[in-house]
């Protein structure tokens, strides 16, 4: 392998990574719980919340909405085999937890969730009356 080729800087940004941040919370679950990185994007008709929760499958995910607070709880299905001897460790394995206060304009009844490649995508539609309206201007 050619080392020089290997180390040529990437034309675009290089990922640096951050250590997982543990959260303390009031659940009875054992083991560490981490705070997932999230993106929140507001579109015309909805909010898109994306969270990195590697190791989580749909069945390990709990999404709750209580009094305007949306909480995401997830458990990892990617536990190492106990027969494996760790020789180098850069990340810990555990659950995920994060909560958000939702704006009033979210339609709580129609929140959608999808898991893909360890990424949770939540779509929070806005209530109809809060959606932008386009007013046609008629020529006289």
């Amino acid at each position, binding site marked *: *392998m050619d*080392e*020089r080729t*290997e*180390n*040529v*800087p*990437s034309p*675009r*940004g*290089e*990922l*640096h*990574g*951050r*250590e*997982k941040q543990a959260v303390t919370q009031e659940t009875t679950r054992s083991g560490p719980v981490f705070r997932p*990185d*999230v*993106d*929140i*994007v*507001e*579109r*015309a008709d909805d*909010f*898109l919340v*994306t969270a*990195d*929760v*590697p*190791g*989580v*499958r749909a069945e390990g995910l709990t999404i709750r909405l209580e009094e305007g607070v949306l909480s995401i709880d997830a458990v990892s*299905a*990617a536990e*190492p*085999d106990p*027969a*494996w*001897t*760790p*020789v*180098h*460790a*850069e*990340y*810990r394995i555990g659950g995920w937890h994060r909560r958000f206060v939702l704006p009033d304009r979210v339609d709580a009844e129609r929140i959608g969730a999808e*898991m*893909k*490649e*360890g*990424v949770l995508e939540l779509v929070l539609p806005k209530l109809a009356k809060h959606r*932008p309206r386009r007013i046609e201007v008629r020529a006289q």
Partner: protein
Amino acid sequence: MALYGSTHRAGMDPWALLDRVRREMDAAWPGLAARSPVAANVYPPVNLYDHGDEFILTAEVPGVRHEDLEITIEANRIALRGERKIDYPLEPGTNVHRRERESGFFRRAFEFPVPVDAEKAEAVCRDGILRVRLPKAASHRPRQITVNAA
């Protein structure tokens, strides 16, 4: 510093350079303290395990498509490289409230204390976790010797 010459430009923080060297050199295997995670500023974070006849590498790569991940194994070295892409439909009226997830290129390399059998290595990416099984080269597998009765 030929290897890192291209990054050692004027004004670059020497600590950032050192950190980058550390990231790219990665595992100096026998000296590593296992069990306590050591990572800061690495992507993706990797765990390595010894399972008798094979090594296991796992990495957290949420949102990385398998076609954007490249694994090269040679002798006792494994290199991972790839790209994490984040594409939002940014139509007019889109407003970004929070942006914590990073996109970009990554590259890691690890050396094992014994050669591995590249032909028999297998990699699977599921739920954002990469798992690579690297069988040790036959001559380096632990052997159990049966003691025969005299």
